[in-house]
């Protein structure tokens, strides 16, 4: 067995038991001791008193007064001069008293006169003593002066008050003894002498001592034994189960959260058993919950990962390229979903060079179900739009398809318009969607028309088309109710009034700025309150008929890598060849392409470049536009290099752009929609 430190709880219990035992033993001891003493004292008192009473009765017939008178009359040896009859009586009585002393086991007996007022002068009449004792008998008439306050006080009490007294003298000069003092009265009732009976109580003191020793020893043995038995019982029945529960509970996490069956071995049939079994039950439950939680967490993580992918897929489905090369219109749109995926949608398609279709929609509900629905609707819109259907036809065919199999009752509100870029006319159809705002003459107003029924709600609905004509500079702002219903902590909604305030605060802004400005106002309004609805905005600004780039547009987008330069070059070269571009002009354009493209790949940090080559047939002008999403950089801002420097002073910085500027007819730089837009123009037949 290995040594185990005594548990604190055991130590505490032993200590408390020890103290309690000690107190209990002490009480028992003192009670016994007191009762023992009292009993013996009473017994002894009674004994000596009755002996004294016998002696007094016996002495009633004696001539004590005569002896006293005689003693007072002679000075020395009063016994010799005593009358013979009196002497004979005295001797006879003395023998009787001696007999008492011997047979009652007294130390001594005395009959004496004590004189006041101090009661210290004693004159003895009788004084028989025990033969085996250390005392010597005082003869008749013996006088002594005894100063002992206790004795003197007792004598005074006897002679003056006639009261009997019992005195206990412990460990005095004559050892421990008990004395009964009785007054001896004459016929007149006057106290003439004191009878003293002294009995040894050494035996009683010793007995009491033995009793005390015995009790202490027995109590100690018994207490220790009881403590031992109690402790071992307590240890086995209570401490051990408690320690077991403590240990097993501590081991729980170490064991990997597995419940310990040892706990079930506690079968006390009391609360400890309940405790141990409850702890076991608790451990089992925790174990179960941990397992369950692990599964649930893993599942949750999987769903979150998938949701993350879904977010990216949905995000990728919404177009982000806002026609930076177009000058006849500008467009911007954004959607921020309240959850990972949203039920809002926007889309825009340049149907041909002259027609721009744009649409905003809001599926009822949110999250994944709405997102699934949104994907379907967006795809339908897109494919019908590409088939060249009119707005109302797009809605009608889409509606027909989504009504079928729409058992869950989802529906979508939507606003779709087709802008004629030549005339500024928008033909649009509204299916239960909130009215867009249109900016005209520097002020926004609602574009209100009677709304049609929502999509997906009912079969065979005819959607009525309306139209509006935009003037150059006019802007149309579409949104979903996530904008107007963005709410604050207090539940107050952003509302149409605030929306118009935001819109009117930057009326002439480009669409991107318009949307961002509205978003800023919303964010300031809602503070940090999480929104429960998707927020979608689309703004389109009509700039009027495109002055430049009449004719054919050719566009190519590739990753911004040096290796792709050859592909871009041949793309441009092929088109220029088609227009029978003179070789020299072609070379100049290709040199310019090399200069600009290498700048983009080296310095802009862009990951994508779009080249848009437009050939205007009326003027036979080629416009090549480079659009990259790199850091803003306007190469035209730099000064031209000094070409007259000597060779040692020459650097090569800025030469490329310098060549471009010198060989092209026109170069321009713009920053649009977070892209660098660099255009070069060259007359092909120059």
């Amino acid at each position: 067995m290995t040594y185990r430190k005594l548990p604190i709880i055991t130590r505490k219990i032993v200590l408390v038991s020890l103290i309690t035992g000690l107190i209990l033993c002490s009480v028992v001891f003192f009670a016994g001791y007191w009762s023992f003493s009292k009993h013996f004292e009473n017994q002894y008192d009674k004994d000596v008193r009755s002996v004294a009473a016998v002696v007094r009765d016996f002495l009633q017939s004696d001539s004590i007064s005569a002896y006293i008178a005689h003693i007072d009359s002679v000075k020395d040896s009063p016994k010799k001069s005593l009358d013979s009859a009196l002497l004979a009586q005295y001797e006879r009585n003395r023998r009787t008293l001696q007999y008492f002393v011997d047979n009652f086991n007294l130390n001594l007996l005395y009959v004496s006169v004590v004189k006041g007022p101090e009661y210290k002068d004693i004159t003895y009449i009788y004084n028989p003593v025990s033969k085996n004792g250390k005392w010597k008998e005082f003869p008749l008439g013996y006088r002594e002066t005894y100063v002992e306050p206790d004795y003197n006080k007792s004598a005074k009490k006897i002679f003056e008050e006639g009261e009997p007294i019992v005195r206990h003298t412990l460990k005095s000069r004559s050892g421990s003894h008990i004395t009964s003092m009785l007054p001896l009265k004459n016929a007149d009732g006057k106290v003439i002498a004191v009878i003293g009976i002294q009995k040894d109580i050494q035996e009683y003191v010793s007995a009491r001592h033995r009793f005390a020793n015995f009790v202490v020893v027995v109590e100690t043995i018994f207490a220790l034994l009881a403590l031992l038995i109690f402790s071992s019982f307590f240890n086995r029945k209570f401490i051990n189960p408690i320690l077991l529960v403590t240990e097993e509970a501590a081991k729980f996490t170490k064991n990997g959260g597995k419940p310990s069956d040892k706990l079930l071995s506690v079968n006390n049939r009391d609360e400890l058993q309940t405790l141990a079994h409850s702890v076991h039950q608790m451990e089992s439950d925790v174990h179960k919950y941990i397992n369950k939680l692990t599964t649930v967490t893993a599942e949750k993580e999987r769903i979150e990962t998938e949701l993350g992918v879904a977010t990216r897929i949905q995000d990728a489905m919404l177009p982000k390229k806002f026609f930076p090369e177009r000058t006849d219109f500008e467009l911007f749109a954004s959607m921020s979903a309240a959850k990972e995926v949203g039920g809002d949608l926007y889309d825009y398609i340049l149907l041909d060079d002259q027609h721009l279709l744009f649409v905003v929609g809001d599926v009822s509900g949110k999250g994944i179900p709405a997102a699934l629905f949104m994907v379907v609707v967006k795809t339908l819109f897109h494919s019908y739009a590409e088939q060249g259907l009119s707005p109302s036809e797009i809605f009608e065919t889409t509606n027909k398809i989504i009504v079928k199999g729409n058992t869950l009752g989802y529906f979508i509100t939507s606003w779709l318009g087709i802008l004629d870029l030549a005339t500024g006319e928008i033909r649009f159809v509204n299916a239960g969607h909130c009215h867009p705002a249109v900016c005209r003459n520097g002020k926004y107003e609602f574009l209100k028309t009677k709304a049609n029924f929502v999509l997906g709600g009912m079969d065979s609905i005819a959607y009525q088309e309306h139209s509006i004509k935009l003037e150059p500079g006019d802007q149309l702002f579409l949104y979903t109710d996530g904008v107007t219903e963005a709410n604050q902590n207090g539940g107050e909604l952003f509302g149409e009034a605030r929306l118009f305030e935001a819109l009117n605060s930057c009326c002439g802004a480009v669409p991107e700025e318009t949307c961002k400005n509205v978003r800023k106002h919303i964010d300031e309004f809602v503070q940090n309150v999480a929104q429960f609805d998707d927020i979608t905005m689309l703004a389109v600004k009509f700039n009027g008929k495109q002055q430049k780039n009449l004719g054919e547009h050719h566009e190519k987008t590739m990753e911004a890598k040096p290796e792709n330069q050859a592909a871009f070059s041949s793309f441009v070269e092929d088109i220029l060849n088609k227009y029978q571009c003179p070789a020299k002009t072609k070379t100049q354009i290709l040199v310019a392409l090399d200069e600009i493209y290498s700048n983009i790949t080296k310095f802009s940090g862009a990951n994508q470049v779009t080249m848009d080559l437009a050939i205007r047939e009326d003027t036979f002008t080629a416009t090549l536009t480079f659009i990259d999403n790199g850091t803003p950089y306007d190469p035209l801002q730099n000064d031209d290099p000094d070409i007259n420097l000597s060779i040692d002073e020459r650097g090569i910085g800025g030469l490329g752009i310098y060549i471009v500027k010198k060989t092209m007819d026109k170069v321009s730089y713009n920053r649009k929609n977070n892209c660098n837009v660099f255009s070069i123009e060259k007359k092909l037949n120059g």
Partner: protein
Amino acid sequence: MQITKQENNGSVTLAIDGIIDSTTAPQFEEAMVEACGATKSLTLDFAKVGFVSSAALRVLLFSQKKMNAIQGAMKLINVNDTVREVFELTGFVSVLNIA
């Protein structure tokens, strides 16, 4: 781009075939570094160079400086009009020795 090297009594002629732009410039630069270290008389035959961009200018400037430092000579021959225009445009005609 193809570069053909010809040695004749310590002088070197490099015949370049192709265009020298930002993609081919590294190859041109490599050939030029080697040639500048090997000869004091370097001739560049530009007969088959369609056009050059500023990347080519960088290499030519760098090479000319190097030849000047070792008191060597570098000349360009058979430069076509398009390329010559670039050299004129950028003031390189006064820096380079163009036949």
